[in-house]
């Protein structure tokens, strides 16, 4: 009992009080002075301007998306040619074999790539964090390389390697595995980068304490380290999925026959749509697809935001550990 009380009393509260005191001091020290805003933020006019600016920018950014969504309810082939309201495009979307194959491929690749890259990246982050300085420095540098490299350089470097391997082994062919390798290069560094800050935040004594209390290293990793870095792992996973879903260049370079495409090159949504918009307007069904994706993402983000807010609220109530 006593120990528990001490533990809860000692760790979180001093941090909280330290963070709060300076603000209080500042406001108390100059009570007589009129509260002055900094020079760019005076008056109502500027606030109105700021609101207008942000909303105009937002509307401009959403214009293509909004037009797309509105025109997903008409069967016109080009924008600006309204042919009456209907849900036909959504019906066509569920009959269009090619687009279904593309969506299926994209989903499979994104899930497989994100899962694998989350495993490699998370383990890598833990391992690198504990490595010797020289190894840490080298690996951190190597991690930065695919991050700063343009996608087309990543894609070309991979295809050149596959060509090189092909010229040695005598048979050069691309497949699902080369495509997966490409997507892993895109995503793994980002998992690493989102797990790393969580490791830095973690109390290094936790792992040692777990070992002292009788955990095997494996148990300590699973039961102590992993829960601590879980938010980073989760955001790394989501980031990997988004990067993989969105990718065109690396897919176009490294794709080979397989998956749902059978004997032809694996088509993802990106490569399928790109093949069409080269010569024609955006295919009508893809408007319905984009609308569905957008609504889906909107719901997901809304749920995630509400969940985070509720959790943060509960955390405040309980005065739990501060992250």
């Amino acid at each position, binding site marked *: 009992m006593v120990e528990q009380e001490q533990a809860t009393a000692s760790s979180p509260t001093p941090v909280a009080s330290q963070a709060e005191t300076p603000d209080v001091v500042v406001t108390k020290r100059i009570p007589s002075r009129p509260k*002055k805003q900094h*020079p*760019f*933020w005076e008056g109502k006019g500027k606030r109105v301007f*700021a609101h207008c*600016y942000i909303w105009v*920018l*937002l509307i401009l*950014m959403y*214009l*293509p998306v909004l037009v*797309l969504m509105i025109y997903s309810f008409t069967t016109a082939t*080009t*924008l600006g040619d309204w042919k009456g309201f209907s849900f036909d495009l959504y019906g066509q979307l569920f009959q269009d074999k090619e687009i279904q194959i593309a969506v299926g491929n994209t989903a499979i690749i994104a899930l497989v790539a994100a899962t694998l890259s989350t495993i*490699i990246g998370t*383990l*890598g982050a833990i*391992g*690198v964090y*504990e490595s*010797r300085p020289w190894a840490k420095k080298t*690996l951190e540098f*190597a991690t930065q*390389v695919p*991050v*700063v490299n*343009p996608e*087309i*350089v990543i894609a*070309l*470097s*991979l295809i*050149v*390697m596959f*060509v090189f391997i092909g010229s040695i082994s005598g048979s050069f062919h691309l497949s699902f595995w080369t495509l997966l390798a490409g997507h*892993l*290069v895109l995503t*793994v560094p980002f998992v690493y980068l989102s797990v790393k*800050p969580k490791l830095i935040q973690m109390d290094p004594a936790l792992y040692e304490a777990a070992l002292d209390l009788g955990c095997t*290293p494996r148990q300590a990793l699973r039961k102590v380290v992993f829960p601590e870095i879980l938010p980073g792992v989760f955001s790394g996973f989501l*980031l990997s999925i*988004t*990067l993989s879903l*969105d990718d*065109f*260049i690396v897919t*176009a*370079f490294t794709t080979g026959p397989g998956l749902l495409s059978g004997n032809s090159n694996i088509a993802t*949504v*990106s490569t399928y*749509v790109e093949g069409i*918009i*080269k010569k024609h307007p955006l295919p009508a069904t*893809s*408007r319905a697809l*984009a609308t569905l*994706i*957008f609504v889906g993402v*909107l719901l997901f*983000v809304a749920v995630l935001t509400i969940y985070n807010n509720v959790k943060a609220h509960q955390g405040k109530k309980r005065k739990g550990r501060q992250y």
Partner: protein
Amino acid sequence: MSLTNQEKENRSTRLGQVFALKRKYLAIPYALFLVLFVIIPLLLIIAYAFTETTVLTDGTKQTSFSFAAAASFFTSASKWSVLFVSLFIGIQTTVICLILSYPAAYFLAEKKFRVNKVLVILFIMPMWINFVIRTGATRDLLNWMGLSGSTHPWSATIIGMVYNYLPFTILPLYTTMLKLDHAQMEAASDLGANPWQVFWKNVIPQSLPGIVSACEMVFMPVMSSYVISDTLSEGKITLFGNYIYLAFSNSLWNEGSFMALIMLVIIGITMFATRNVEKDPSSVRGGGLW
């Protein structure tokens, strides 16, 4: 009895020490992955950029060291013009993105807006729609508005680029703006600086890390972009990315590698030039999305 137990324990701990799962071993798959798919491919790019494969009369292939790819790049006026057009479009897009997103990031980071983190999420939301569909939608919309790639390739391309990369500049700027020290700005104005002086001498230097990472996130991707320039200018504007793609589709590995090497050199120069600015590690390609 107790002695043997002790001995057993000792032996097992000793064995355990040798085979124990050390946390640093977890980096091995990661390191292998990086070497295999990042380091070796880049070394191969350098190797391919300076070699040439010739098919001998008896049908065997011979690879030898050569400057053929370099020579074909540096002697071709069209390739030089591609390089300059890419640089120019890259700079133009970066500047427009910065000018548009700087005030936006500043306002978003203001206390009155900060309550509303939803606004920031709204700015990032379009990024979740497939990038190719988004580009196609922009092109079709511009066509509808009479700004088609066949008549105005340059402005259509710039609009498409700015539209696509604006969220990527708002994010890093926003994160540095959150850390802006308002007391400093207040002090400057108390000491007699006018608003412009405060802006140039205090706000800009304070937000420099954000500006640098915003530039890095726009400039190189724009130069090397393929889909946006190809779609929006309807093939009229060729950027570095388009050229590398062309080399890829014609299996010109040596020339493609040399052009990729030039991109790597430009990256190296920009990284070197900005090495003293402390960058925000989370603000790279999609970082901070989640």
